[in-house]
């Protein structure tokens, strides 16, 4: 026979549950980290070392999705995405969705590029593809206006805006890191098997260009404005810790003025270029070179983009254009 639940029983139950929850929370926080290795679960690309100075390039394709496929096949061979996505993998795709602007201003990655990457990952057998960015403008508006939310969802990805409590503070324990001690990084980035970095090519008022290395700021929480004091070194530090499996740069159109916000279609020029590689530094070194993309005259030379050089110094890739092996 069951006794009716009294108030006392109820409060006791709630108390026990709360204690349990608190203990569970503590248990989570004191669990030992799995060795001093990378705080990211994401695997490096199997050829990461061999292809450290190699990029895949697609130029002149009017269709961004075709450009994505071509560039990946140039780099990875006919295996394409299957060279780094295994069946059942959790794939995190981090496009630039920072600004609440439409595709015509090229402030964010083209929705077609994101959708194609999602489709390729799913076709390679990925169990789940998550698409997200810690937007600078209000997130749901950025997701909506950029067209990325709709396109990625239609391609089969899970799209959700970031939540502040899901950032976990990660210690930047690596001898190559010079400035940053720790930073909150988004959970889905830490837990993915494969991390795909999707950047868009823009000029930037402080770091001169924003490409793959700068794009990774979208996995950071906390006060990102505090990244901008000595930004080049800070970006190199971030890239030492957060190492994407694969980087792809959408330069189908390039923002040549007013970056990184832009906001006007006349700041955008077509370049019909997709670049990809296993090293963000190498991809950026090729893309930042004024010889390769239509950067405005006199805006910068490659040597001035110090975060690329600093990244190469940390062994993340090559900053020397003559050593970059272009598979086109």
């Amino acid at each position, binding site marked *: 026979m069951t006794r009716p639940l009294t108030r006392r029983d109820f409060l006791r139950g709630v108390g026990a549950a709360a204690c349990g929850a608190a203990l569970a929370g503590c248990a989570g926080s004191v669990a030992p980290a799995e060795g001093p290795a990378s705080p990211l679960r994401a695997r490096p690309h199997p050829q990461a070392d061999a292809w450290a100075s190699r990029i895949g390039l697609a130029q002149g394709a009017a269709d961004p999705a075709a450009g994505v496929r071509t560039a990946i096949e140039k780099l990875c061979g006919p295996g394409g995405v299957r060279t780094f996505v295994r069946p059942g993998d959790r794939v995190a795709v981090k496009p630039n969705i920072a600004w609440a602007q439409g595709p015509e201003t090229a402030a964010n990655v083209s929705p077609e590029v994101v959708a194609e990457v999602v489709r390729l990952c799913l076709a390679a057998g990925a169990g789940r593809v998550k698409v997200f960015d810690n937007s600078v403008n209000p*997130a*749901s508006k950025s997701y909506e206006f950029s067209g990325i939310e709709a396109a990625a969802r239609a391609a089969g990805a899970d799209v959700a*805006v970031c939540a502040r409590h899901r950032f976990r503070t990660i210690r930047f324990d690596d001898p190559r890191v010079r400035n940053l001690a720790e930073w909150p990084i988004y959970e889905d980035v830490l837990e993915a098997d494969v991390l795909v970095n999707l950047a868009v090519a823009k000029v930037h008022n402080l770091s001169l260009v924003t490409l793959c290395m700068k794009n990774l700021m979208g996995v950071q929480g906390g006060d990102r404005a505090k990244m901008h004091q000595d930004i080049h070194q800070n970006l190199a530090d971030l890239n030492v810790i957060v190492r994407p499996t694969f980087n792809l740069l959408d330069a189908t159109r390039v923002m040549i003025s007013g970056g*990184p916000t832009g*906001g*006007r279609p006349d700041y955008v020029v077509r370049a019909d270029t997709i670049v990809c590689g296993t090293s963000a530094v190498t991809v950026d070194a090729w893309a930042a070179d004024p010889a390769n993309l239509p950067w405005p005259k006199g805006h910068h030379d490659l040597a001035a983009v110090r975060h690329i050089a600093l990244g190469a110094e940390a062994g993340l890739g090559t900053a020397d254009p003559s050593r970059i092996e272009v598979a086109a």
Partner: protein
Amino acid sequence: MTPESNPRAHPLHAARIAVQLAVLLLFLVLLVLTARGTAVADRPWLAKLFLASDPLLLAGAALAGAFTVALLWALAVVALSLLAPRAYCGWLCPLGTLQDIVDRLLFRRRPSTVALWAMADGSGYGGQVRRRDLSAIARRAAADRSKNAAPHLRQVKVGLLVLMLVVALFGAAAYGWLDPNSIMTRSFGAAILPMADSAARAGLVAAERAGVPGAAGAYDWAVAHHLLAQDTDLKEGSRYLAVTWGWTFTVVLLAILLVQGYQRRFWCRNLCPLGAMLGLVGSVSPLRPRVSSACVRCGRCAEECKMGAFEPGPAETPYRGVVQECILCYACARAMCPADAIGIRFGSPRPLAPARGVCPSRRAMLGSAAVGAVLGPAMLLDRRAREKRESNPMLRPPGALEPDGDFQAACVRCGACVRICPTNALHPSGVENGIAGLWTPTFIFAIGACDYRCAAKAGDAGGSANLCGIVCPTGAIQKLTQTEKAEWRIGTAVFDRSRCLPWARGEECLVCEEQCPVAPKAISHETVETANNDWLALDEDQRYRYEQLQAKRTAEGLTREEEAELAAMPPKTRPLALPHVLRDRCIGCGVCENVCPVDGPSGIRVERLQTGATGWGGRGKGQGAGPGPRARRGRGGK
């Protein structure tokens, strides 16, 4: 009292409770649904249903010269009150319902307790409590605790109404401080809802951290449906709470609810200016509480009515109902009167003069009006100063009427704009701009920035672009198109060179320029050779060595070792980007102030600096715009 506990209750009594709960629920659902602005752009009336139908706001706006057609919905409530005096208070007003709920939950003794006390003190029950007695005791327990003491307090609300409307005549919409719909919108929108949001979020986050299955999904669902705030959009720590005044609004609401421990519906009978107004309107209604000649003068109605709407008639005549006080709650009809003498019935609309002290005397009315006539101008003494841009610190929402005096005449301080601002940038002001400006909206850019496209939809340049203008019930904040909003000047950003990192400390930064949403950007930079902090940190002898090597290099050239030594030393100067505001492009949206990484007051702040060419005081208008009436009303753009 539920019908089960009182089989004799009037059927409209239960209907009234049902309507009350439904309307309160509607208020709360609309509050949550429209809080994030998602449902509002297409259906703005959702967000101002209660405010736009408030006759006090209509009367006040008309007197203050800030009439807008949207407020004509209030005529429906006036018509209702002509027929059914103060039914609005008894059936519809969310603040009234909230008071009834609090009274029911906190202040009514349970019948069993009362019966036990009665048994204990042996007052006539002799240990035998029958069911019928219990019901009687329950009714007694529900009766007013003050036994309707201090009926003369009731005239205060009429005095407040007169006073506030006279003040409105001088151009200060201060009646918004006391309007019940304004109180509800303000306290729920800017205090209770953010607190509930934080509590719900904390619960879901704790559940998620504890690994409760489904908790993470529930959180995502709630955020995706805009039931919870999207917290990465808010500056860390900010939670929609009106930081400066949120707790004050909570305390005011709690005071209104808890003073019922002394007297039920204390606010409604003694203080509410809207209630006073509807009572006066309803004075001519044919429907009113009536006591027939069957009255046995037991006085129970006068003691039990929660509005104190019954009073003894002149000697040996029946009791009578006071039409200005009755809220048609139907608790009296059938249930209260042992002689069945009370009914809410149609009949002669001729008002009976209530007893002395229940309605204000002519002298009291004139006195209130006189106080208002002194207070109004006194509150607005500094109006000239406030309307001068140079001395008005308020950063008003985009679309706010101009000059500021016009804005203050129209703004009813309901806080609807504060509630809906998606970045939590709008907050109620204090008395920085004079007592008359209390709780009018102002920006706190350290907490949030004015979103360039807050109401815009993807690929759509039409429609209204500012949520605050869409929800403002009185048009104090006008709706702006996307183009108008993009040009509306809230203020102008100005660098504080003693705090801005590049200017003050020689560190690189430029976050303000990076995020400036104006195209082309209103902040630019110049790269200059400036002192290198690393060189300045060298010891005196190292600096001497550096200078020596430099001089030698110019004069005769250095050896290889010396070149290496010099290269290892930090250079004396280095290039540094120094930011500047381009006045003509800046719209004062506050993004720069909001994102500035300097802890404490930002290195760049938006102020009400003159924005046009020197000598032109225009704000929100292009140079040379004529001072026509349209321009004076503060329409943005050219």
